[in-house]
């Protein structure tokens, strides 16, 4: 990876702490009294059903939405994240679920958007070299960095969005479903990457619906349900436990389906015997 982080907090130090963060959209309370802590060199997975408020929480931390209540502490200081620029300056990088790329610009321009090298006479060559280096680390399959984003596939765009989050040497990276569109090799590469940035002492928040990926990299699993905290788990907790925390009931469609499957299997076994 690139430059070493002098400003990175020591391992184990708290990078981010949320206290009582709430967010209302009109009558909808998307988030209520969220508590969350991320330490340096730690991967926290944020899981929950569709509409649980995961992306909203990420957007609050990225400065896209303003929280309705609560405090955010970053590296020990209380901060107000009133714009995306502020969050980026502090060292909070985000891969948004909807990617947020400019389709009319090429890959290099998107990677460096807002942080171009030499603002008064853009250094295209240096930016292109840096772009290739970053993309190569992600095992990206991108034919040309001079084509507009509009011509890329969903997974290629996702890779570009991930690469962009690494560009500014952040202290905290938030990835909102980063592997949703990725191929096998690219997913593995992203998981490797998450481990690498964790080892460099960054805090990582990853959102995913894929429990296998979550277990593979997360140090802690935080469950959100209907915009509220619903338990913190370790990667070795059982699937049953996680699913019931996510769906809010031991008797849920996931476990019913699992039972039905195993029941079927036994029946057919019985029939054959």
């Amino acid at each position: 990876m690139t430059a070493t982080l002098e400003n990175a907090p020591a391992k184990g130090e708290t990078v981010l702490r949320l206290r009582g963060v709430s967010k209302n959209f009109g009558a909808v309370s998307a988030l209520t009294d969220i508590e969350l802590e991320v330490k340096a060199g730690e991967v926290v997975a944020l899981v929950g059903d569709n509409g649980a408020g995961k992306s909203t929480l990420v957007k609050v931390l990225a400065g896209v939405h303003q929280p309705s209540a609560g405090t955010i502490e970053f590296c020990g200081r209380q901060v107000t994240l009133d714009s995306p620029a502020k969050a980026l300056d502090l060292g909070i990088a985000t891969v948004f679920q909807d990617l947020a790329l400019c389709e009319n610009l090429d890959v290099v321009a998107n990677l460096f958007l807002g942080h171009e090298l030499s603002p008064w006479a853009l250094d295209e060559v240096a930016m292109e070299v840096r772009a290739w280096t970053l993309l190569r680390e992600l095992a990206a399959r991108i034919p040309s960095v001079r084509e507009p984003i509009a011509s890329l596939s969903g997974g290629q765009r996702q890779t570009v969005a991930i690469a962009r989050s690494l560009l500014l040497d952040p202290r905290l990276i938030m990835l909102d479903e980063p592997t949703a569109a990725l191929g096998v090799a690219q997913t593995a590469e992203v998981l490797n990457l998450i481990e690498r940035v964790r080892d460099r002492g960054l805090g990582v928040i990853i959102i995913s619906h894929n429990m296998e990926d979550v277990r593979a990299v997360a140090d802690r699993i935080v469950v959100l349900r209907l915009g509220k905290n619903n338990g913190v788990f370790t990667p070795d907790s059982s699937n049953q436990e996680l699913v019931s925390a996510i769906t809010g009931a031991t008797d849920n469609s996931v476990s019913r389906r699992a039972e039905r499957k195993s029941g079927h299997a036994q029946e057919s076994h019985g029939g054959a015997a």
Partner: protein
Amino acid sequence: MSQNPSQPMLDRSDERVRHDDSLAAMAKGFIDRVRSGDLGMLPVAVGLVVISIVFSALNPVFLAPNNLVNLLFDCATVGVISLGIVCVLVLGEIDLSVGSMSGLSSAMVGVLWVNMGLPVAVGILAALVAGAAVGLLYAALYNRLGMPSFVATLAGLLALLGLQLYILGPTGSINLPYASVLVRFGQILIMPDWLSYVLALLPGLAMVGRGLRTRSQRLAANLSAQPMRALILKAVVLTAVLEAAMFYLNLGRGLPWMFALFVALAVLLNYALTRTQWGRSMFAVGGNKEAARRSGINVRRIYTSAFVLCSTLAALGGVLSAARLASSSQQAGTGDVNLNAIAAAVIGGTSLFGGRGSAYSALLGIIVIQAISNGLTLLNLSSSLRYMITGGVLAIAVIVDSLARRSRVSHGRA
């Protein structure tokens, strides 16, 4: 240089991409781009050829050197306004009040300079400041109140026209002194022949110079570089065309200083749009405002810069047109000025949908527009017909833009 075969160039490792290195392949690449809706300067080139053939057939005076010199004088006034339109169009916004703004600024110059006896520089400066202030107002309405620029500037169109009529007072027209530098600049001042030939060399030289520098930088960084042959060919053709144009103009009066000012502004704006962070941010905001905001771009400041630039350039265009007509009148900035400025940018290839465009589109587009208008005037057509035809041309330009955009979307070039 690390061009050993075992280690391919950074940007040449994917075998799916065709690399257009030979001249034939480059031509093929160009055709592909046009097919996919990336028309570039093609409509302008086609338009100019058609216009020249039609109008010179109808009236041979059209292509006479001195008529072309007059054409360039006319291009400069509306062209400067069109440069500002490019800025707002790149953001996907519009300014419908540029005509009124130019009229107001021409009236301000007349009133402050001739009626009140202040130095001409004060009049010009005041007009430009007024332009900037109007732009700031539009930006505030857009940023703070979320008022669509279409509505705000439509209101501005009427309000500014009213202000223009108000300050001109009952007489309605002020003649500017013919002997003054301003009027001479707008009507008479022509570059010496030798200077026009020298200046016509610059674009080609700059092209080759920049090409060589980029090439050595890219090769040093293990990136592929364009072959020099194609670049030199382009530069030679460009230089030949420009020198021929200068020769032809110099058969008449020559190259107007006012047109040179317009070209200089276009070059400046082109640099700002393509080679600075501001320009990159402009295209980003025009392409996807929310993505730009999330990248840390101060979107409001970008909108403000574009609206201010547009209104200020409109004011400058007004000053130039006052100089051209040697008067500040109630008619200044009315009629087809607005639409010509917008049509020029669109014909030149700046999209009404935002995120695409170039400063040179104003330069080339205005030549097309003024050529049509000039040709129609030579045919002694009344302004009623002229308006209808110009309206039709704008409609065609917008249709081409829409179709090209649809094609780009389906070819992944949005």
